[in-house]
Every structure is written in C-alpha cells, then in structure tokens.
C-alpha cells in the first residue's frame, strides 16, 4: 500500500466543491432561453379521465404549450418499460401492462402525470397547471397489498386479479417433507414496510434540442446515464442513441431511485423539440413522494425447520410483493432474483422453497431501493433465526455459529442458485461480539431496568450478492441488459491521466477511490489522475452505479484497462531500452530491464507514445486503453451487526444505544469511504426499523407524503456506530473487493428489530412490525399486559 494507493484512508478530492457550494447539480444548470415544466398530476388513486380542458391554462401568461398523453402517443413516444422479464410458475412471461409517460384513459396512482405545462417561468407554469381542468370519474382503489390480489378493483386489463406474476424457487415437495420431519418449526408473519428513498436532491432534468445538428442533450439526476440513453432511444424512441447525450452531473444521492427511467425525463426530451426551447423540471419534495419509485413493501409468511440439535433443515417462504401501479424499470427482479436467492443467508440450511406473488396496487411504482430485495431476505432469515433461538432456548449467537457455512467450505453452493466464493462468518461474529461487549450486556440490561427501561440486544448475520453480475447469467434470468462495466485510461503526452468510467458517483467518492486504483496500479502520482464520469458524450458506454457494483465491476474494469496500458508500455519501453519485451518488468510506475538499472518511467513512455520519433514497428501511437469487464459471479459481502436498544415502556419510545458492525467487504480501497458507506446504510436500516413508513389510506392517498409525516432519520435518532472489518478478499475479481454500499441497509433492520423483540420479550410481547414506532411498541406492551391479566 502506498500513501495514496489502494487501502489508503485519504480524504476525498470531490469534497472541496461541495463544502464551498460549487457542486453542479442538475437544478443548478440553466440554459439560454430555458422554459419550465410543471406536471398536472392525478389527485386520485384510480380514476377514468373523462376529459382534459386546457383552454384556460393555454391563455395564461407565459405559457408555451401543454401536452397530454395523446400528444406523446401521436408523436411516436413509446411507453415506459420494465427491463427484466420474469417467467412465472406456468412458464408465462409476467404481466407488463402499458405505462404511458402521460396517463391515457385512466390514472392508477396519486401523482400519475396527466399533462405537462411548459411556460417561461416556474411560477407561470405552476399558475397555468392549476388551471388545467381534468374531469375524472373516480373508481375504487386497491391500495392495500394484502387485499389487492383478487379484489374487485381491476387496475390493468392485462393483469387479471392484479397479479403481475407468481414465481417460485426450490422443490416444494421436498421442503414440505423436511418440515414434516423437523424437531422444531419457527413460523413468523410480518410486513416489510414500504419506504420512500428520499435522496436529498429531488429528481430534476433539463432537456434541450439543437435544431442545427439534430442533437438532444438531457441533463439528468441519474445513476446510469447510458442506461437512460439506451432505454430512451430503443424503447421510448425519442432519438437515436448517437443523437442523444445524457449528462448526469453531480447527483445528490440516489439509493436506487435514480436508476429508473421516469415519465418526466421522457416527456421533457420529447417536448423540448416541439417547444423549441430548453425545458427544466425539478421535483418539489411532495412531488418526489408520489413519483420516485418506492422500496420494499412485502407481506411474508416464513418458516424455519430445525432438527433436535438446532441445525437448520429447511426454510419455506411465501411473499407478496407490491409492484405499485405500473412495473418500474427493474421492479420485477427485486422480489425474485435479488430476494429469494439470498434466503440461505450465512447458513447451511438444507433446502429452501420460496413463492413470490407480485401484485399491482393503486400506489406509486415500487423498485430497487438500497439493498433491493436483499434487506427483505436478510430480514426474513435473521428474524426467523433469532425467533428460533428464543423459542428453543438457545443463545442467538451460538445458534448462528452452529449453522454458519464453515470457513473452509467455500466455494459453497446454496440451495437457491448462489455459489458463495469465500467468507469468514464465524470470525465476523466473534469480532462483533467483542465490539459490542456481549459479555457486558447482562449488566447493561440490569442498569437499564433500574432506570425503568427495557434493554434488548439483537443480531443480524447478513449476506448479500453484489457486483451484479455476469451478463450471461442475468440474461438467462430475464435481464434485458448486460451488467459488465467499462473503463478508459487515457494518458496525456505530459504524463497525467484521465480515467473515464461507466460507473457514476453520486456520493460514493469514485473520483477519489478510482484515482487511488490507477495511482496504485500504474505508479502515477494520485494528484495526476482525474476521474471523469456521468456524460455519455465523454465516457465509454457503461452500466452505471447500483447494487454495490462500482468497486467489484467498475474497479475491475479499471484494473483491466491498466493491464492493457502496461502491456503496451512494455513494448514501447523494450524498444527504447533496447531490450526484449519479455525482459521488461513493470513496478511502481517504472519499466525496468530485468537485472539491470535500465529503466523508463510511465510518463516517459506516455510521452514517447505521443511523440513516437523513436518507436517500435507495428505499435500504434498513443497510450489510451479501454477495457470492458464482465464479472465471473456476484460477490458476497457478509458480516454480523449487533444492536442494543433501550425502550421506555411508558411511551414505547425506542432508543438505539449501541450499534456494532463487522463486515467482510474483501479488499478496502479507501477505508474512510467504506466506513461512510456503512454508516449511511445503517442509518437507512435503522430508519426502516423504527422510523420510516410510506402509509396509504384505503382510498390510495399517501398519508405520509411529506417530512411532516414521513419520519426521516435525524442526527439525534441515531447512535455512534462501532465499525470493524474482517476482510477476506474475493478470489473472483482482480481487486478482491466485494462491495459495501448496501450492507448497512441490509443488516440493520433485522439487528434493530431483533433487539426490540429481545427487549420486549420480558413484557410478553412477541411481535412488533416495522417501523417499531413509539405508539406501536406501547400498543404491543398494552396488548401483552392485557393478555396476561
């Protein structure tokens, strides 16, 4: 490790522009002649559109034009798509009803856009939008996941009974038989609460069309600008790929919600040509709540069969997953291949069967949100294991250790598709026990009791699949895209380097971490490496950032491009140093002739490549190498998180007192950044466990539609986190990395809720749903006390 190479905890170079207010987010961009879009949205969850009257609005000051769904359809704009086709239990494709960018005929959720007003100022557009008169016939809504399937409300003609698909994995008969032979069966039913991603930067876009060249430019809050360009070209038909430039500048957080292709982006790109002006749209937060894809929202019944020794024989899981009103871009994959394939957890469970019903409801579409399927899976597994420990009188840490995959058992094939590459589950558990001070828990519990409080401890030994994933594998499972990544290392004649990556940084610190990789691998000073991302006109085609893939896949692509640089550099150095190419060694930025002191540094080689006066025959000038890396497998970050809570029995308030996390992310490129990723993930997981919930009423109105009612985690809700690492480098990629972006959000909900249940067990409470709000905890205590009396 060098001071600024792989493994160095250096402060981020991107910070300066953000701490001085010089970041460039999409809403900071203003184009000459820019106009503003405001969307007219459905106030109803389910309604027929009888008519849309625009006359009054069109006469308002500053109004350029107003468009409705028919205008887009007449203009040849294709509907929004889902890019992952699930094959159901009958071998049929899932139901993917049309999703027009502006609703036609019917609206299906509150916030569904019906029209767009383009005006010279934001205020004018808002004033005019208020004058667009839409006549609706309101229909009954199916807003509740548990009852939507088979209800009388038919959301889409194409999806009878509101069922998108029923999907299963595992041999049901064999699993049923295993349950029949079990010494103990633990059974739980619970919800996985619906969340709103709430990146602090609301979504925004600015679209413009250059009539002289026929080029479109779309500035956009995106985690994956090339994916946006591909979908908008190939499916929405807005412009050929080579005439559409998508720029994702500084992006203020994504957490999955900025992966997807949304209506507003499609509408503005189409409309800017018709209006003849650039158009800007920026979501208001209340608009974000009813348009950004939500996350989670499962109803699950889960069972774990144990033998008399406490070994896990089998698991059986039935889940209903909410898709919302339409299928979002990757919605269908989340509760299937990103969920059920992780139900083995860290354990040697003999067999697993999972059945998933994906259901349409009159709610905002649901798609990937930090963790995407894996938090739901970890919650199922870890709640079951903790409950099984309590029911069978075993220490929860011991029961886990008894069932962990052993360190020497890798590669380990689970019953549900995945083959784990490596890990040290026992080691992480032991380290986490030490970090939380497990042996001192009884004393802390007693101290809390003396203070009138209930203290509980909870574990979560999670595993996840990251670095998504081999293209052929995901293609066979229904993905519409390949999931490789690209990197282009461009040396300039003076020896400094520009790295162009297909991944996108929206908080993850790529500009620092990727420069560390290049500096480390090529021996170029860190300061002389710049990282460029987010602009389809500058970077090679890339798949973007999500699924904790930027290090494992994007980082590996960088390494591969660096290898190509070294390979070419050796040819040039061999020629200049009058040696055989086979005798050239490369180390720390120097090409050396083996066994001699003859050497040439990489900057000299780069200069020679661009000023090839003395140059090898048959070698092209220039030092500019691009690589595409397709991973061999997922990577499998895993770890143990332990949480301690204190509950005030009088109010039901839950306080997070201690939180210890020990994770195996393989090689750490920049530990400072990795710790930050863990902190943020834990906060979102704690948020899910005790604070956050998207609540719909029976009419399909989002009751928690602003920060007045949707509880965002605040600084005083959260504890100091104790973070440790137990790194086992992955053998599957050249960096040995596994991915760290989602782990906290995956691990934390179960750790916190297991602690809550542990604390409440003495009160006779055995079930509280997430989020464990004060009222909910108080009611659970009241219920248990009432039952006991």
């Amino acid at each position, binding site marked *: 490790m060098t001071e600024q190479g792989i493994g160095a905890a250096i402060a981020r170079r991107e910070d300066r522009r953000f701490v001085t207010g010089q970041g460039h987010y999409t809403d900071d961009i203003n184009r000459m002649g820019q106009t503003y879009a405001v969307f007219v949205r459905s106030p109803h969850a389910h309604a027929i559109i009888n008519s849309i009257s625009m006359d009054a609005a069109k006469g308002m000051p500053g109004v350029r034009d107003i468009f409705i769904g028919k205008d887009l359809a007449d203009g040849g704009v294709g509907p929004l798509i889902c890019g992952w086709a699930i094959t159901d239990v009958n071998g049929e494709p899932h139901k993917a009803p049309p999703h027009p960018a502006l609703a036609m005929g019917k609206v299906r959720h509150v916030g569904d856009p019906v029209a767009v007003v383009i005006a010279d100022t934001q205020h004018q557009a808002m004033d005019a939008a208020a004058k667009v008169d839409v006549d609706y016939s309101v229909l009954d809504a199916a807003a509740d996941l548990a009852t939507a399937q088979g209800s009388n409300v038919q959301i889409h003609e194409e999806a009878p009974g509101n069922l998108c698909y029923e999907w299963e994995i595992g041999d049901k008969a064999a699993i049923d038989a295993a349950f029949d032979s079990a010494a103990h069966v633990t059974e739980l039913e619970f919800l996985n609460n619906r969340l709103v991603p709430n990146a602090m930067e609301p979504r925004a876009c600015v679209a413009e069309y250059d009539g002289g060249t026929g080029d479109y430019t779309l500035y956009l809050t995106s985690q994956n600008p090339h994916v946006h360009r591909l979908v908008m070209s190939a499916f929405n038909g807005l412009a050929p790929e080579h005439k559409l430039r998508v720029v994702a500048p500084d992006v203020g957080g994504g957490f999955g919600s900025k992966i997807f292709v949304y209506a507003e982006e499609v509408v503005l790109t189409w409309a800017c040509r018709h209006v003849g002006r650039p158009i800007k749209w920026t979501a208001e937060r209340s608009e974000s709540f009813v348009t950004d894809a939500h996350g989670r929202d499962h109803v699950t019944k889960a069972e774990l069969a144990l033998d008399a020794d406490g070994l896990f024989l089998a698991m059986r899981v039935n889940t209903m997953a909410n898709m919302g009103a339409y299928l979002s871009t990757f919605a269908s994959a989340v509760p299937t291949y990103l969920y059920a394939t992780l139900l083995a957890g860290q354990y040697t469970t003999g067999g697993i069967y999972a059945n998933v019903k994906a259901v349409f409801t009159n709610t905002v579409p649901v798609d990937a949100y930090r963790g995407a399927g894996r938090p739901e899976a970890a919650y199922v597994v870890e709640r079951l294991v903790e409950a099984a420990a309590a029911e069978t009188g075993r220490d929860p840490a011991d029961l886990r250790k008894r069932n962990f995959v052993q360190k020497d058992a890798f590669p380990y094939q689970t019953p549900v598709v995945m083959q784990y590459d490596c890990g040290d589950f026992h080691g992480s558990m032991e380290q986490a026990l030490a970090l939380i001070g497990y042996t001192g828990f009884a004393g802390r519990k007693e101290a809390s009791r003396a203070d009138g409080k209930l203290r509980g401890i909870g574990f979560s030994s999670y595993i996840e699949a990251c670095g998504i994933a081999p293209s052929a594998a995901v293609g066979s499972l229904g993905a519409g895209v390949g999931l490789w990544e690209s990197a282009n290392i461009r040396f300039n004649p003076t020896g400094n380097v520009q790295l162009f990556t297909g991944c996108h940084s929206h908080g993850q610190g790529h500009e620092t971490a990727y420069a560390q990789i290049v500096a480390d691998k090529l021996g170029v000073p860190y300061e002389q490496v710049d990282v460029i991302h987010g602009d389809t006109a500058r970077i090679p085609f890339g798949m973007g950032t999500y699924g904790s893939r930027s290090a494992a896949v994007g980082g590996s692509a960088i390494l591969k491009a660096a290898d190509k640089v070294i390979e070419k550099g050796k040819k040039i150095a061999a020629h200049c140093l009058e040696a055989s190419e086979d005798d050239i060694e490369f180390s720390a930025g120097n090409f050396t002739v083996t066994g001699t002191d003859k050497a040439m540094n990489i900057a000299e080689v780069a200069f020679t490549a661009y000023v090839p006066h003395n140059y090898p025959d048959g070698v092209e000038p220039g030092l500019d190498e691009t690589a595409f890396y397709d991973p061999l497998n997922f990577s499998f970050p895993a770890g143990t998180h332990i949480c301690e809570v204190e509950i005030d029995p009088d*109010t039901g308030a839950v306080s997070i007192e201690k939180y210890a996390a020990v994770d195996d992310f393989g090689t750490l490129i920049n530990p400072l950044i990795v710790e930050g990723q863990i902190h943020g993930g834990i906060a979102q997981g704690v948020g899910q466990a005790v604070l956050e919930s998207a609540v719909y009423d029976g009419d399909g109105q989002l009751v928690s539609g602003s*920060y*007045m*009612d949707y*509880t965002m985690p605040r600084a005083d809700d959260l504890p100091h986190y104790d973070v440790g690492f137990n790194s086992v480098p992955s053998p599957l990629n050249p960096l040995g990395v596994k991915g760290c972006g989602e782990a906290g959000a995956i691990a934390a909900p179960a750790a916190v809720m297991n602690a809550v249940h542990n604390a409440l067990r003495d009160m006779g409470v055995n079930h509280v749903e997430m989020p464990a709000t*004060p009222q909910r905890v108080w009611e659970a205590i009241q219920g248990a006390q009432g039952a006991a009396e």
Partner: protein
Amino acid sequence: MYNFEYKKAGSVAEAASIIGADADAKLVAGGMTYIPTLKQRLAAPTTVVDMNGLGDLAGISVAGDTVTIGAMTRHAAVACSADVAAAIPALADLAGHIGDPQVRNRGTIGGSIANNDPAADYPAGLVGLGATVKTNRREVGADDFFIDMFETALEQDEIVTSVSFPKPVKAAYMKFPNPASRYAITGVFVAQAHDGVRVAVTGAGPCVFRVAAMEAALSSNWSADAVADISVSADGLNEDIHASAEYRAHLITVMAKRAVAKAG
C-alpha cells in the same frame, strides 16, 4: 405559491387597517407556518402584511413578578434570555425546544399563538402559566384566547402585541414529539401558577386544554404520584398515523408525571 401584494407594515395600526379592510389580507410574523402554507398553495392571500419591521414589538421585559414578551420576539431570544431563565425557567425551556434552531431564530411568539396550531408548544405555556395576551385593542386571558383548532379570540383587525406571564412558584413543560414533524404529539405544562395549579395540554386535542382533575390532585399533593392514576378520556382527542387518541390520552398522564417531577 400564488402571487400576492407585499406590504411591509410601518405600524400596528397600519397593519390592522389593512387586514381590517380585506379579509383575504394576512399578516406574516416569523412565517414558519405561513410561508410553507403559501408554498404548498394552501392559501391565496391578496396581500401579505409583513410585521418584521416593527422592532417595538420585539423584546423581553421583567417588571415585578411579570415577564412581558413582545409579539415579534423570536423563540431563540426567549430561550436564551437570562431574564426569562431567571424568572420562569420552564418558559425558556419550552421556547428552546420549539421546532429546530432555524425555526427558533425566526419564529415569533405572536405568530405562534395567533396561528394556534393544535400541536404548538406556546399555547400550553400561556395557559399553563395563566398568561395575558395583549392586543392592539384589549387584553385577553390565555384561558379565553385559544378557542379551537387554528382559531383564537382575535378579531379580524386585531393583532397580538405582547404576552405577559406571571411568575409561577414552579413550573415545567414536557412534550412527546411527533417523530416526523417534531411537533408535540402531547405536551403538558404544569405550574404552581399565580392563581393556583395549572395543567395545560397541547398536541393531544384540537386546542390546548386544562385538566381539572390533575390540577385538583396537584393542589393538595404536588408530586408525580398524584397524577399517576389520573387518566384523561380519549374522546375528542386527535388521531393521526403517529398517535391514536388512546395513545395521546395515555401520554398526557405520562408527560404530566414527568413535568411535575421536572418542576421539582
């Protein structure tokens, strides 16, 4: 936001004449509730009359056993006032826990009580201490000032100019905040006030109210135990996704106990 005319008030009388003549003209003080309301297009005033230039309305004075706070005094000024802390520490404590620091730097006592949000803190402080609201026309006792949800005794052209708080023997405020908005789900202000024991509850009902049973119990026995078994009926209390009426009723007792203990 709908557009409106903006008028910076030069005097209370001028502001009163504008809102007296036009029912759709509205005063803005700190604007901590009103500007968000405007942003969400939940109000469409003809004229917004800005009270922020009226320096005479801001300030804290202590005379004898009375603390008088001008209507345009910011929450932060009350929270940080050595005079308030010395005379009525519970009031400084209450003001120091309204909203967040930026709200406290801008929000005013006059604006808060004139708005009478059912989850606001100040109404509990005023009623709990038996304060007097002074307007451009008269003086109104706190018990008579708060009428109902977002409704006060203020006439159309009546403007709060100050609030006078008699110094209590002892007092304290405890609130259980809404986890999302941090407004009071239930806040209870208890005091051995100038005219006897007062227990005022905010957040739980449509409007601040007193709990006679608790006041009677505390009058004879000032201790947390005295209110521990006194429950308030859930009938008519507020309900939302964060707290049922029953839960709010329960919290009244818990917060009352804790407030009494805190008051000492």
